[in-house]
């Protein structure tokens, strides 16, 4: 069982008090599973992803436990986490296109990074060259400076570096949002390839674009305003979602072939609540058509069917 998270609570410390970014997340990601982590902007998906590997102020650890391959991750301790980072858990950041040191050749950057882990660059070079071919990058890239490559190429280099030590968990944070349709598809297929070739054991793919997840994710975890709404296999999420928010979200996505004159889709009125001092209970309450008095209490994230979790009083 690759990753298990129990009741994780992460807030942001600001001058005006705590922002409740992640409110008690409990879920797990199996071996070889690509879990999509979806939700609107500001729902806490990026905070959840980053807290597992690089929990840095203003992010504040409140409570919760995280297990990777059975071992507990000390995510609250910046230094002790170094032992897990890069070797067991890795990340492809949203800013991947300028994540490389501009004044250092790419080859020497990789060599420096590996040296800090006591790994000799020459020892890993053959594997690195094989992976360069896989992502259509020439061997020349190692001698180049980052500014000599295109944005897309720089991102692929970062993807290679992050997965070089075959981590058991890879976090990909919005890596497709800045790309064109054609390169978007290539990057997604690369993530699947990394899983198929065992470069990574399990992956958390963070994005706001549900249609990308339909193509490559095995399961999808939907978040809303810091709370987990629903987790289920991809087909179930799209065909028979149980949480009202997921249902309305899927309904508002224009299928290719949907025409406004023919089938007028509907959005979700209103906007998510502020997370500075969030309302008690289910935070979708004031936008949810099915809300009733029971929603004052926070609904538990319960397994209604094997592999299908939902947090809504109507569904339990």
């Amino acid at each position, binding site marked *: 069982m690759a990753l298990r998270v129990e009741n994780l609570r992460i807030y942001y410390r*600001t*001058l005006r008090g705590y922002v409740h970014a992640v409110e008690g997340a409990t879920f797990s990601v199996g071996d070889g599973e690509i879990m999509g982590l979806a939700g609107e902007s500001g729902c806490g998906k990026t905070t959840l992803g980053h807290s597992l590997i690089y929990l840095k*102020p*203003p992010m504040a650890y409140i409570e919760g436990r995280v297990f990777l391959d059975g071992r507990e991750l000390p995510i609250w301790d910046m230094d002790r986490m170094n032992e897990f980072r890069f070797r067991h858990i890795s990340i492809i950041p949203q800013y991947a296109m300028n994540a490389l040191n501009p004044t250092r050749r790419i080859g020497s950057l990789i060599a420096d990074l590996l040296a800090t882990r006591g790994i000799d660059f020459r020892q890993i070079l053959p594997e690195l060259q094989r992976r360069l071919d896989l992502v259509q990058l020439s061997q020349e890239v190692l001698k180049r400076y980052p500014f000599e490559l295109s944005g897309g190429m720089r991102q692929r280099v970062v993807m290679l570096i992050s997965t070089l030590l075959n981590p058991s968990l890879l976090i990909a944070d919005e890596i497709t949002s800045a790309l064109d349709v054609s390169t978007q598809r290539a990057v997604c297929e690369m993530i699947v390839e990394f899983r198929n070739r065992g470069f990574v054991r399990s992956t958390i793919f963070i994005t706001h674009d549900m249609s990308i997840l339909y193509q490559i994710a095995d399961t999808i975890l939907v978040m809303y305003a810091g709370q987990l709404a629903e987790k289920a296999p991809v087909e179930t999420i799209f065909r028979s979602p149980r949480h009202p928010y997921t249902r309305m979200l899927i309904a508002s996505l224009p299928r290719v072939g949907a025409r406004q004159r023919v089938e007028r889709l509907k959005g979700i009125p209103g906007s998510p609540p502020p997370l500075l001092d969030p309302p008690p209970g289910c935070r979708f309450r004031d936008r949810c058509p099915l809300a009733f008095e029971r929603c004052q209490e926070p609904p538990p994230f319960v397994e209604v069917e094997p592999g299908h979790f939902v947090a809504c009083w109507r569904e339990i």
Partner: protein
Amino acid sequence: MGSRSELLYFAWLNTKVRVGALILALFVILAIVGPLFARHDPNAYVGPPAHPPSSEYWLGTTTFGQDVYSQFVHGLRATFIVGLLGGGIGTLLGVCIGLLAGYRGGMVDEILNMFTNIVLILPTLAVLIIIAAYLTVRGILVESLFIGCTAWPWAARAIRAQTFSLRAREFVDLARMSGRSSWKIMFYEIAPNMLSYLFMTFILQFGGAVLIAATLDFIGLGPTQGISLGLMMNNAVLWAALPLGMWWWLIPPGAAITAIVGALYVMNVGLDEVFNPKLREL
């Protein structure tokens, strides 16, 4: 950026800004009130020569018996005038050139930018020396004018960069589509966003003007009449205050300049923290 009042609230909260402002206020008061208490004209020979500070002469007297305190407070006033005028002119020129180059872009930007670089590279003091040397009558206004006219490139570079980033923002295009004239856009849409930046630029120009003016006076190219802190130091060196151990003639002028310019720099750092939202959130 949040509303006006919130910004001022944060500005005052910042210790660096408060400390800097207090020191500055102290010297401003001294410059305004000081001369009223001076019993003697700064250049008049009134007391016993080389007399250490006493109840009669709070800061002692020079080798010729001039009242050092009177020279100090009048010199302080002159320094503030040069700072305000020189810094003001420098900032004004910097803003106009920076705003124009940043907003217009293209050929205008290329020429103005080259001109800015030229004046930047030129060692301004050398130019001022030549000008001042040939001027028969040198007043504070003329000195401030020259200092302002050679200090503006630093302001122009900063404002130009700021204008470039603001010009690309969509609200400028929106204003152009509302039929606003370029001048209105420059001064009603772009400039207000840089108010904090303009203020910080003025602080640095003010400090720079005071330092350059003091150096010019020290070399002997300051105002031909009247007194300034730089001139005091020049006289002190010329009339061997050092070998005669007259510290009360040497220390105050330099200390005042250091305190004023230092306070300005510290305020500038404090304001940078206030206006830079990233820092504010911590």
